[in-house]
């Protein structure tokens, strides 16, 4: 049967017409005086419910705002919302604000677009008792304020769920609030700096013009006073960060760039006031404003690219299940993971994640341990086998006895170790910081020397002071301050366009200095799932039957066979199998049209009386009908495309490559030999991997991984890189994310960072050379305003122009 696809009225996803819920709405149209019919289709009762809820409460304007965007269909399985009203929950997440209202921070799941934000805010605002709701579009975080004596939090959560979204609380730690405050503070200072600098510039243009055409002293003084008024807030309000930085620098006996900026700007300011009051000579208020504005801009670019670690931990905490089903007095009870004791019996359903470590009492089936061990195939578990928290039950219902309480179970131990590791991540000192320290010291010394030489030569104090200051002014660190941020920003932009997300600007430099590349095997070097590499079919083979059989199992091997069949054959028919049964660690057996259909490994065939004399170093899948072999397939986890090129690039750049894996030695060795990897370590636990990375902390390490098993190692490495398809946790912990999952992006990340770093070095060299040329002029007392202004803009322009060259190599 060929059905046409129709769109769900609520979520706009396309489905076959046959599976949709059809609804006809008859109404009388006054315009045409006839009865009209509107037909609506819904993919599920969830969508239908949400649609009617919205139209009944007058919120159907949502669909106009949504346009053609697609939503995800609402899910039905939620934890009981009454847990939101418990005292322990309140203690952890709910605060009282200054007005006496309750306040909580939530993350809203399922937000796709601005229409979703609009809908959630409208719906919640209509609820009696809700005082304020503010949802952030970018990170889906919401601040909710409500009056607890009028409405309970659980009712608010129910409201969010009823319109097809879900909400869970998070703890907005001090860290996050601090980061937000810092950003806002910078906005304010930048706004003032820009206002001051831009207005001073147009006044300065008049002064420069007057320099050539002649301007009387009175007019000069008027303009100087106007500039003075404008420069004052720029220096003392916007420039406050530099004074603060200079103070801390002096306190810790470190000469930093802030000292140079602060002293340079302050002395120039004082000198300019002196000139203005004296009513002769040239004032440099424009330099004061420009220095502060440019350097502040450079600092701001760095603040913008900072990602708060707090965000990361919120997402991690979400991955730990909150509640489990515990068997008490022959009854299942859903209780918090913290209340489970050792010896309790937990029931776990297919698709659920184990929250606590334990031992199987009842049930036989598969557990997906890929996220913890990197083992590419699900592991078969039977009675007395151990269950590790964080692994996912694949196909059957299990009951298991708890052996360790929650805080000692693998998953939560991993999370707490992670929190530790993230706060202790090794950092490399940036080149620009190193240089600016020496540079600042040198300039200050030169300025002082110049002043004394001039004074003792003999010149008047005024003249000597002015020449001394001009050394600091001309050495205006604009170019130096912009050298790194501009280049890295262009590098980040280039990476972003090519699917490489650097989370912080400074990582480009660290990555460029990498000495060791550590790779996870499954999912990083290899595809992470088996693929058919060889297929052989015999007479009487029916591809449609194989498809029906292979799709009935979730095992990766049969999934791979199913995908291969779909790809290789056209016009496949849909068969309905009778009594399909999975035999653990063996295969699948089913009946179709009175025939016995088998699919599985060699042992399974032997068990069913079929002799197999085919052998392979890779996994084999056999397909038989009525005890006659119809086809067999050879499958393996293939290395990703571009791996060889990556290794070659590493070799060329003297980067040592290491492969780490939780897999067996044989599998690891085979792959290492094939790809020419010199160093590899197998049978590693997540902790072992992290230890390995830590052991090599004297080198600059880059760790690439995808699963939860790599998270600790990612956090310990100088640079952690996660594959885009990896688990959310590993993406959160990593410093760089490769969105398209390809090894080619990894090579490109290396190339972009190296090129950016090279240009940062060039930029620093340019600004230093520029200063080398102009400082002698200043020391000789030849600096006129024109040279000062030209020097400032030219050096900055050169640096910006040079940075753009990063893109050249990638231009098509």
């Amino acid at each position: 049967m060929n059905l046409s696809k129709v769109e769900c009225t609520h979520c706009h996803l396309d489905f076959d017409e046959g599976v949709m819920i059809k609804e006809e709405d008859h109404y009388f149209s006054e315009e045409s005086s006839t009865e009209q019919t509107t037909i609506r289709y819904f993919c599920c009762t969830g969508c239908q419910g949400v649609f009617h809820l919205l139209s009944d409460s007058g919120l159907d304007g949502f669909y106009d705002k949504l346009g053609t965007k697609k939503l995800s269909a609402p899910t039905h399985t939620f934890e009981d919302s009454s847990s939101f009203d418990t005292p322990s929950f309140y203690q952890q997440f709910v605060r009282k604000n200054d007005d006496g209202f309750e306040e909580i921070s939530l993350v809203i799941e399922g937000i796709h677009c601005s229409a979703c934000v609009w809908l959630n805010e409208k719906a919640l605002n209509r609820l009696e008792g809700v005082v304020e709701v503010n949802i952030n579009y970018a990170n889906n975080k919401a601040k909710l304020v409500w009056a607890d004596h009028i409405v309970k939090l659980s009712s608010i959560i129910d409201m969010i769920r009823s319109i097809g979204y879900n909400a869970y609380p998070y703890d907005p730690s001090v860290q996050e609030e601090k980061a937000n405050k810092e950003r806002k503070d910078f906005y304010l200072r930048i706004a003032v700096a820009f206002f001051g600098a831009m207005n001073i510039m147009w006044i300065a243009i008049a002064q420069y013009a007057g320099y050539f055409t002649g301007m009387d002293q009175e007019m000069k003084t008027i303009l100087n006073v106007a500039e003075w008024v404008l420069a004052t807030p720029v220096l003392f309000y916007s420039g406050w960060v530099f004074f603060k930085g200079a103070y801390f620098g002096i306190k810790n006996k470190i000469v930093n760039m802030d000292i140079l900026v602060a002293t340079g700007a302050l002395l120039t300011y004082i000198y300019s006031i002196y000139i203005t009051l004296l009513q002769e000579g040239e004032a440099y208020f424009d330099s004061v404003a420009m220095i502060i504005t440019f350097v502040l801009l450079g600092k701001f670019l760095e603040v913008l690219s900072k990602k708060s670690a707090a965000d990361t931990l919120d997402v991690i905490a979400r991955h730990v299940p909150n509640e489990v089903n515990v068997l008490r007095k022959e009854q299942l009870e859903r209780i918090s993971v913290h209340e489970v004791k050792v010896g309790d019996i937990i029931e776990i359903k297919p698709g659920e994640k184990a929250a606590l470590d334990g031992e199987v009492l009842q049930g036989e089936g598969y557990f997906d341990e890929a996220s913890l061990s990197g083992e590419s195939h699900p592991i078969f578990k039977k009675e007395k086998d151990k269950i590790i928290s964080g692994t996912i039950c694949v196909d059957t219902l299990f009951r298991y006895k708890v052996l360790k309480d929650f805080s000692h179970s693998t998953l939560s131990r991993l999370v707490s170790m992670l929190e530790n590791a993230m706060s202790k991540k090794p950092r490399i000192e940036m080149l620009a910081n190193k240089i600016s320290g020496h540079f600042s010291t040198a300039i200050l010394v030169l300025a002082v020397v110049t002043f004394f030489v001039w004074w003792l030569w003999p010149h008047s104090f005024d003249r000597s002071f002015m020449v001394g200051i001009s050394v600091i002014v001309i050495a205006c660190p604009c170019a130096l301050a912009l050298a790194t941020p501009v280049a890295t920003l262009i590098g980040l932009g280039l990476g972003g366009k090519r699917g490489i997300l650097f989370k912080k600007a400074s990582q480009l430099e660290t990555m460029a200095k990498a000495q060791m590349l550590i790779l996870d095997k499954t999912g990083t070097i290899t595809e992470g799932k088996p693929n058919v590499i060889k297929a052989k079919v015999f007479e009487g083979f029916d591809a449609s039957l194989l498809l029906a059989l292979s799709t009935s199992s979730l095992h990766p091997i049969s999934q791979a066979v199913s995908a291969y069949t779909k790809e290789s054959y056209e016009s496949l028919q849909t068969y309905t199998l009778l009594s399909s049964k999975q035999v653990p660690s063996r295969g699948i057996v089913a009946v179709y049209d009175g025939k016995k259909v088998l699919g599985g490994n060699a042992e399974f065939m032997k068990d069913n009386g079929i002799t197999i004399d085919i052998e392979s170093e890779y996994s084999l899948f056999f397909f038989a009908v009525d005890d006659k072999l119809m086809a067999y397939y050879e499958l393996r986890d293939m290395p990703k495309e571009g791996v060889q090129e990556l290794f070659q690039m590493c070799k060329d750049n003297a980067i040592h490559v290491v492969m780490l894996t939780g897999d067996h030695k044989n599998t690891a060795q085979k792959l290492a030999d094939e790809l020419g990897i010199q160093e590899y370590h197998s049978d590693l636990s997540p902790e072992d991997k992290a230890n390995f990375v830590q052991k090599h902390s004297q080198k600059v390490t880059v760790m690439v991984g995808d699963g939860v098993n790599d998270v600790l190692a990612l956090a310990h490495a100088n640079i952690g890189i996660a594959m885009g398809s990896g688990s959310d946790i590993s993406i959160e912990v990593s410093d760089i994310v490769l969105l398209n999952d390809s090894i080619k992006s990894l090579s490109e990340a290396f190339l972009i960072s190296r090129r950016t770093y090279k240009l940062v070095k060039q930029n620093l060299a340019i600004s230093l050379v520029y200063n080398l040329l102009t400082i002698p002029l200043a020391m000789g007392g030849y600096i006129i305003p024109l040279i000062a202004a030209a020097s400032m803009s030219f050096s900055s322009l050169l640096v910006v122009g040079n940075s753009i060259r990063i893109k050249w190599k990638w231009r098509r």
Partner: protein
Amino acid sequence: MDNGIVIMMLGISLLLGALALAGVLWAIKTGQFDDKDKMMNNVLDDGEDALNEAAEKERRKKDYRPE
């Protein structure tokens, strides 16, 4: 040109500019630029409803305040 006129023009333009700056600073401080995507989208939803809602929000703050 009389210097007095230049002083007056400079003074007035700087004052007007300062007023605009004060407006921007106030908007930043009260969080109106915190979420730039939402800010741009809210322009589309602006209207009588939004005003009513703002008034309603103020009313609720007063009515619900616990003693």
